[in-house]
């Protein structure tokens, strides 16, 4: 019905709008004035906390001295960037970062989806709520606590896991210090802490699916699994892709705290990532220009990744995030 009435209404419009556009605009602005007022805090937030600090990027091309400030510091061009790329450990650090990121995408990313599908299949509101809360909880623990708990569990000196191994006649394993165990420990901790929290958005979008679709499919004789495959998953496909693109954007940004807590002299070769490197080289030694350059590099890589993935997702007919 709308489609029938719409064309004639929009067709003659362009002319008058061009004709008296400024007064029309004013009128519209005035009519929605409250909405524009509500916009102000948001815009201010982005200007103050996101756009203005960009000015600070300048120092990655300088030898920044706090006392002399940005205007007084010496310009050195790409010095700090070339130092980063020629650092002997750079390739190692970059590949460590990428491997952990890859594990995040391949192993962690699907888990909240599966968990959400499973939670959705739970019948009975009480159980559903109960389990939902249970899997959310770890998210509220800090990494320090998560890492300490696992330290206590896997330490060689009386940790429960090693005691069990010994009890069943296996050799004890030095989980904390062997480079081979760093990545599994890392990803298990990520899953334990974040998987439940990650289900929130999926559950919300599953809740929005028209129940009629399920009814219809049941009529046609579809079982539970078929329903998940043909109705639930396609319905949340858009959400999955959006979250995936956002995740890609944080490619070099794994979160410093977690890795730093797991890092020690014995597993550094696999555990040092860009974030922890920035911490030791930049903040702890006060090399502001250098750490800014690394931050700049990270952001540019993130930006390129998001744009690429977004383009791909549009090519294959999905919406993308912009």
């Amino acid at each position, binding site marked *: 019905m709308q489609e029938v009435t719409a064309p004639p209404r929009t067709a003659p419009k362009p002319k008058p709008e061009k004709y008296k556009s400024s007064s029309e605009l004013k009128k519209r602005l005035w009519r929605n004035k409250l909405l524009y007022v509500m916009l102000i805090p948001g815009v201010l937030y982005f200007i103050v906390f996101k*756009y203005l*600090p960009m000015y600070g990027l300048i120092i990655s091309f300088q030898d920044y001295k706090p006392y002399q400030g940005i205007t007084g510091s010496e310009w050195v061009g790409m010095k700090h960037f070339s130092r980063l790329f020629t650092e*002997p450990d750079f390739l190692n650090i970059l590949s460590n970062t990428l491997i952990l990121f890859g594990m995040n995408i391949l192993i962690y990313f699907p888990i909240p989806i599966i968990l959400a599908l499973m939670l959705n299949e739970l019948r009975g509101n009480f159980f559903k709520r109960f389990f939902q809360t249970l899997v959310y909880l770890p998210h509220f623990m800090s990494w320090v606590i998560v890492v300490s708990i696992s*330290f206590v569990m896997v*330490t060689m*000196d009386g940790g429960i896991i090693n005691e069990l191994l010994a009890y069943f006649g296996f050799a004890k394993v030095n989980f904390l210090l062997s480079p081979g165990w760093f990545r599994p420990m890392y990803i298990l901790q990520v899953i334990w802490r974040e998987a439940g929290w990650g289900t929130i958005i999926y559950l919300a979008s599953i809740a929005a699916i028209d129940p009629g679709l399920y009814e219809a499919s049941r009529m046609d004789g579809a079982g539970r699994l078929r329903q998940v495959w043909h109705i639930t998953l396609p319905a949340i496909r858009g959400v999955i892709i959006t979250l995936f693109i956002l995740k890609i*954007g944080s490619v070099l940004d794994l979160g410093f705290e977690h890795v730093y807590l797991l890092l020690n002299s*014995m597993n550094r070769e696999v555990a040092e990532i860009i974030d922890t490197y920035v911490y030791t080289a930049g903040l702890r030694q*006060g090399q502001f220009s250098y750490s800014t350059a690394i931050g700049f590099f990270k952001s540019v890589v993130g930006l390129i990744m998001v744009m690429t993935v977004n383009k791909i997702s549009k090519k294959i007919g999905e919406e993308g995030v912009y």
Partner: protein
Amino acid sequence: MTKKSFTLLLSSLLTLSMLSACGGNNNKEAAKDPGASAGTNTAAATDAAAEPEKPTEIKIMLPLNTTDTPPDTIKNEVEKLTNTKLTYQFFPADTYEEKLNSSFATGSLPQVTYLKNQTTFLQMKEAIKDGQFWEIGPLLSEFPNLNKLKPEILNNTKVDGKLYTLYIGRPLARQGIIYRKDWADKLGLKAPANTDELFAMAKAFTEQDPDGNGKKDTIGVVDRNELVYGAFKTVSSWFGTPNNWAEKDGQLAPEFTFPQYIDTMDFFKKLREGGYMNQDFAATSKTDAVNMFTSGKAGLYIGGSMQDIDSLNKDLIKNVPDAVLDTHSMVAGPDGKFAQWMIPGYNNVVLFPKSAVKDEAELKKILKFFDAMMTPEVANLMYWGIEGTHYTVVDGKAKATDNKELIEREVKGFKDSVIGEYETNGMYQSLNVLPGRIHAEELVLENVKYGVADPTAALDSATYTSKGVELQQIIADATYKYMYGQIDKAGFEKEVENWKSRGGAKIIEEYNAAYKK
């Protein structure tokens, strides 16, 4: 989406944005204060007629070693005694380095800036040379009390031969062993006279069931992921390893190029392989190490200060009521000689940023406050608290109240900021009751006789200042890998070469150039 990508770009970006956010804290702190000390203001106003001098306003930033910011109890008293209006900005010691660097980067350091320790001081050296802090050396003679500070320690804190800082004094050599005397007595062991006996003690504590429960559930040494303030450096000095640097063939060379360093690594390797120390020490935090000791699981706590015996004892007897602790430090090396590494006599220093202190007149006013802090009256107040509330005087010594929580809450924050030491500021020494602690105090004095100083303490190396911490990581990693048997001597030497090629050679060169001067 442009907005989104920029957000990504920026959010991960800059230390800067983080910095400005942190900077906000200061203002809050400062804004809160005028109200809090309004009392002192009015008091000062009534005095104004008789005494025209207004209280000096001073902002002080310092690390906090407790969980909560102390109340104003002590501060108010100090303000009265020194005619000042103080604003303390406490920041947790754990993250103090970041706070310091970020405040510095944004030019928001207050008039009085405490650093965190010697390492942060080394890192500030470049900025100090840049002229960003006031030189105070020439002014010191104007202040009778500050002038008492020990010249040899002041000398250790000089930068390019000039003095910029006041120091917080610490005994030169507090390192040693804290051990379970009850276990040793039971097994018929004496305090270890040399490194072999130390090893034997760790072995006996592990294998001979010293807690008598019939189970093999004890270990000898408990250590943590720290090569300097953990067990390693203390034991290495007993083996005769130099304190960071020493002369070798007429040139200064770093400690890890000396054979004694390798010997020490072998010692720990053997301890670990035998199961006589905690297997995860390379990943054990201080808290976990202390817990292991105070739960009665381990017999030897090496490294750190022997004066820690008080707090270790307090927690240990909660778990093992009949445990007895003692301290020990005279452990001879394989050549039969005693040696103890020494710190440069301070554990922290204070700087006065030019960005906050406008002129020399203002600097002098601030120094006047510190001069007053070095009188017994103020030093006692800040170090011990209020007499009768936080401590009592017994035999001319201060006896802290049994209410440790009260001291922790109200005094500890200020205690760590007192300039000088009791010899120079005249404050009370502590009255000790625990026999192990009394023994520790004797040993601290004894240690100095065999003390080995770090020859580079007063020297400068630009490369060390800018890359030292990063490079030291190479050596620390290699040391742990050697102790865990992952690399051998050749592998360790390869890492030393790696250290040299990435800037270490330059550090050696620069220190030697400065040494010859």
